[in-house]
């Protein structure tokens, strides 16, 4: 008849006992109100799926842009008939700037060869020309992806005014613009997810409030027998937390499935366009953070609902 005791087992502490009770009650309540709870789980899944989706897309694009930025070149196109003094002045300016890791001189002839190689369809047209129209250039490899953008702008402006320089092309300008657009998209995604997360928290609060209403007699009895507040409110907070956790895990699973399907379909295309290490799923740390985030959202919803119990 000693159904609650387990001889030989050490008695857990009061916090563990309270958590055990809260968890048991929350699981039972989740099962009893499974239809309403499903609604709460779906809203959290939706919010976390959208957030996770935006994070996956933007983190992949960010990686691609970072890779492109690292490979970006700073091209100095030289005028025909450049004197050796002018060339030395340009070299000196690049060396003194401290921004150039290395540089390669591309002669007019080499530029033509590259053009024919990169654009074979147009090669016959180029062969018909009497003079080689391509300028010689210096292709400068920059020191790192994180070099000061303002310093690069200044160098580009100074070089453009230097004798013997026809033009300066700086790839990172458009990459920076792309990065700015991506940040905007990311913030828009986070804002949208924020709205969905708030809606999810409200749904959880209402579903938990419903559970509280169903169990109002039980709560009243607990209050009258002098139960500690952790035992009265705890099950509702745990219920919300579990809804959040389950919703977020479901979102990650769905996101992984969607990601797998996309990669199977468009993976080859992406490798060709973005490079070999393109298309990566959310890092494990971010996935764990999303699940924890879902649990926090659910916990807040549950706590808001349980706060009415005094």
């Amino acid at each position, binding site marked *: *008849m*000693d*159904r*609650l*005791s*387990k*001889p030989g087992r050490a*008695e857990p502490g*009061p916090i563990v*006992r*309270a958590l055990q*009770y809260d968890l048991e009650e929350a699981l*039972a309540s989740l099962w*009893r109100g499974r239809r309403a709870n499903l609604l709460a789980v779906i809203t959290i899944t939706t919010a976390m799926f959208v957030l996770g989706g935006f994070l996956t897309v933007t983190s992949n694009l960010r990686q691609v842009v970072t890779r492109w930025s690292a490979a970006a070149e700073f091209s100095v196109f030289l005028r025909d008939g450049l004197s050796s003094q002018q060339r030395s002045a340009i070299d000196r300016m690049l060396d003194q700037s401290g921004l150039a890791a290395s540089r390669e001189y591309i002669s007019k002839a080499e530029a033509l060869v590259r053009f024919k190689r990169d654009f074979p369809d147009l090669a016959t047209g180029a062969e018909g020309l009497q003079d080689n129209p391509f300028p010689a250039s210096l292709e400068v490899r920059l020191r790192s992806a994180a070099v000061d953008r303002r310093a690069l702008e200044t160098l580009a402006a100074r070089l453009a005014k230097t004798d013997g320089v026809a033009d300066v092309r700086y790839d990172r300008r458009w990459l920076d613009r792309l990065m700015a657009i991506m940040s905007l998209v990311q913030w828009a995604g986070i804002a949208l997810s924020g709205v969905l997360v708030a809606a999810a928290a409200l749904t959880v609060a209402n579903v938990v409030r419903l559970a509280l209403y169903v169990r109002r*007699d*039980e709560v*009243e*009895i*607990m*209050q*009258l*027998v*002098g*139960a*500690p*507040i952790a*035992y009265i409110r705890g099950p509702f907070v745990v219920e919300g937390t579990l809804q959040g956790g389950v919703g977020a895990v479901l979102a990650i699973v769905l996101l992984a499935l969607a990601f797998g399907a996309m990669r199977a379909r468009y993976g080859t295309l992406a490798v060709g366009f973005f490079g070999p290490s393109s298309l990566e799923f959310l890092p494990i740390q971010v996935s764990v953070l999303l699940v924890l985030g879902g649990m926090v959202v659910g916990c807040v919803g549950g706590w808001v609902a349980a706060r009415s119990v*005094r």
Partner: protein
Amino acid sequence: MIETEGLSRLYGRSAYALRDVTVSVAKGEFVFLTGPSGAGKSTFLRLLLREELPSAGRLTVQGRNLATLASGQVQAYRRSVGFVFQDFKLIPRKTVYENVGFVPRILGVPAAQQSRRTFQVLKWVGLQHRLNAFPAELSGGEQQRVAIARALVNDPMIVLADEPTGNLDPDLSLEIMTLFREINAAGTTVVVATHDRELIRRVGRRTITLDHGQVVETR
């Protein structure tokens, strides 16, 4: 044990549920609180359970003024009070054993003691053979006995009962009153609110009669 002095409970501006009530209940005493519907019996018990606060006057239990208890102290005080209601207030989804056993559990009693004490009180009210039954499977008398077992499981110093026999026939009512008498015989203070004068006559204990919120007779 229980002392009131000029105790009043006012609802709205002029609706007195209790007015200037001065009574005392000694430790280990069995007292009936009687009077017609709306006399203030249930209000008196709600004040004793510290579900409500007095509008005026003092209510002390074992020298502690209930109005000045902080919320944490209210919970601690309630652990020393057992209560029984007319509608039993059992949890339908829990078995007889669980309805009683969850009280020591949420009060942090060690597991071995929980089960021992739960079985002990259920045996005392004569329900040791219905441990796994749900409230819906029990008669009214049995349900009230479960409620009494729940009130006793925490070994309270006071047991409060609000019309505990209101839903029961006369024979079962007497059976329940016998349980209260036995609880009282063990040294627990018992306060029973009832309008059943025949039952009071058969049990024969001190009676405080209320009418329109005021004490009209003490015998």
